[in-house]
């Protein structure tokens, strides 16, 4: 039995359709990440699950219970907010216990759960402090602790790491992941950060304009994005796109653009000749080599260009290339072994078998 299911859920604010026909099941114990830009509807979906917003149409079930019209407190879910939403005038201990006290839970039970959560998160030394006296990471832990003591059926995370600096964010990401695996509680996690989505999620839901774009395991979405939006959204640096057409004149299927010819693997039955298409190449699927000046016929699976910029990241580097005409920028992610100089002419070999092809409507052609 799925732990959470959304059945054709839509949310309209007047004319604005914030969420359209959201249909999804979350498995028991799963960590599901909703990822999308602002206005994608991800937060609204979470708030509808929490009961903070109502659904316009559709139904939401938690376990075998229809919670569509229940108020938040009767849904047995707990939420960690972006700004933590700790009650500023209460101590850490009171912040942890307030939910249970409001439910008039027995004292011993409150005590047990608070010390259990505090133990797991290392909060005991902070018990008598007020939120103002805590660091960002500590506040984050208290917010998680407050959710844990309620022993909910589902955890909800609303961009919990976006107020932290980069180093702490990476650390808390790991903590949240391992905590979730230990507790094995169904979790719905909202973020705009695709790295967070990739590293944390058992499954990812990519959202745009209130609609599901793709659902799947992170690696599957990365390898086989269903459309151009997902392809560009997931992965850093983002996928490179080249516009061109299909050529089947030589008995095989190839992508052609000005000075570029990339042999496409398989027959790509969906692709029709002379249809405008977009070729997607991940930065790590470009192999940069020096040389390759001048015109001549396009070499298969090669982009020729000039180095615009080399970003050294330490372990690896990003090379920005101008592969025009028309002036067109692509990024290659390379190891640091041989780095070209800025302005140098280079060739970039495309790993043709790993390219992605998208039709005029943006959907992937396979």
């Amino acid at each position, binding site marked *: 039995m799925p732990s959470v299911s959304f059945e054709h859920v839509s949310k309209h604010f007047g004319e604005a359709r914030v969420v359209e026909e959201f249909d999804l099941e979350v498995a028991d114990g799963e960590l599901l990440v909703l990822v999308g830009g602002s206005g994608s509807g991800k937060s609204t979906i979470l708030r509808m699950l929490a009961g903070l917003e*109502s659904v316009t149409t559709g139904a939401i079930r938690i376990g075998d219970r229809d919670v569509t019209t229940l108020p938040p407190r009767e849904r047995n879910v707990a939420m960690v907010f972006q700004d933590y939403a700790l009650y500023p005038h209460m101590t850490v201990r009171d912040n942890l216990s307030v939910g249970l006290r409001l439910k008039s839970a027995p004292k011993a039970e409150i005590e047990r759960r608070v010390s259990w959560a505090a133990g797991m998160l290392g909060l005991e030394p902070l018990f008598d402090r007020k939120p103002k006296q805590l660091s960002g990471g500590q506040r984050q832990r208290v917010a998680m602790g407050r959710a844990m003591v309620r022993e909910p059926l589902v955890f909800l995370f609303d961009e919990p790491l976006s107020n932290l600096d980069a180093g702490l964010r990476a650390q808390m990401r790991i903590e949240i992941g391992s905590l979730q695996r230990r507790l094995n509680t169904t979790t719905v996690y909202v973020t705009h950060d695709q790295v967070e989505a990739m590293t944390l999620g058992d499954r990812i839901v990519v959202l745009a304009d209130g609609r599901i774009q793709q659902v799947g395991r992170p690696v599957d979405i990365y390898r086989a994005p269903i459309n151009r939006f997902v392809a560009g959204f997931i992965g850093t640096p983002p996928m490179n796109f080249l516009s061109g057409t299909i050529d089947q004149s030589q008995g095989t299927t190839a992508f052609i653009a000005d000075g570029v010819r990339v042999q496409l693997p398989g027959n790509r039955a969906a692709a029709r000749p002379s249809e405008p298409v977009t070729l997607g190449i991940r930065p790590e699927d470009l192999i940069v080599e020096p040389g390759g000046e001048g015109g001549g016929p396009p070499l298969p699976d090669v982009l020729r260009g000039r180095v615009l910029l080399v970003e050294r990241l330490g372990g690896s580097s990003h090379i920005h290339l101008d592969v025009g005409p028309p002036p067109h920028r692509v990024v290659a992610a390379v190891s640091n072994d041989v780095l070209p100089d800025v302005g140098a002419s280079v060739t970039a070999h495309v790993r043709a078998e790993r390219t992605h092809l998208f039709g005029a409507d943006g959907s992937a052609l396979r």
Partner: protein
Amino acid sequence: MRAEAVEERSGWLLAVPYAGFLLAFAAYPILFALVLVVLQWDLVTAPTFAGLDNVILLSHDARFWQAVANTFVFLAIHVPLQVVTALALALALNRPLAFRGFWRASFFLPVVISGAVVAILWNSLYATDVGLINQLLARVGVAPVPWLTDPRTAMPAIAIMVTWKNVGFYVIIYLAGLQYIPRSCQEAIELEGASDWQRFRYLTLPLLLPQTILVVTLSTINGFQLFIEPYVMTGGGPLRRTYSIVLYLYTNAFSYQKMGYAATIGVALALIIGAVVVLQRRVIGTAEAA
């Protein structure tokens, strides 16, 4: 129940008392004020329809128009005096000072004191024979002035007192404005070699225009509501020279039980206040554009 429905219901439950209050104690009295204009009513017998009698009476009522004239005399003294004193004290306070809090608190002290107390106190200060002010004047050889019993000095005396009572309030307004004059502007104009006066005239004063408009508007509205001071100090005399509009309104309602007429005065006062405030804003606005 759905989240929005809960909000809708709680919102209504929480707002309904206030909405009821506004209807009963704001909307209804405003409408009823307009109804009262066409009624004659002594609160004992049933009200009778009077048509435009109240309005016609008001237009010929020499006492009402004298009260209006008195109020304008009051404003002509009070408003400019209020602007000048408040601005001067605010400029003095807006410097690095020892005991800044003390100075500010002392200027503000009369603001927290009831107008009734201030009136009683100044009654004593203005007293012709034993009053503090005439005592001080005697020290420098000035003969006692019958401040509140001479028709020529009574209203100016009250205007000075009200200015004294309220100046601290307007000082705070000007101080708030002065804080927003960028330090860099002051330094720039100093580098240009401007004198203190030029700096005040071409930088401070124009930048304080919004505060000046506020001070003029508030002190005008406040001035139109003059009541307790003449009520306590002069009873409207001498020769009705300190009779204010509100005092006349109060007398009609309380002493003569003429509710329709009193309400008519109230409506007229509201219209006069509105007209004067709009006019002031126009004039100051044009001055600004020029």
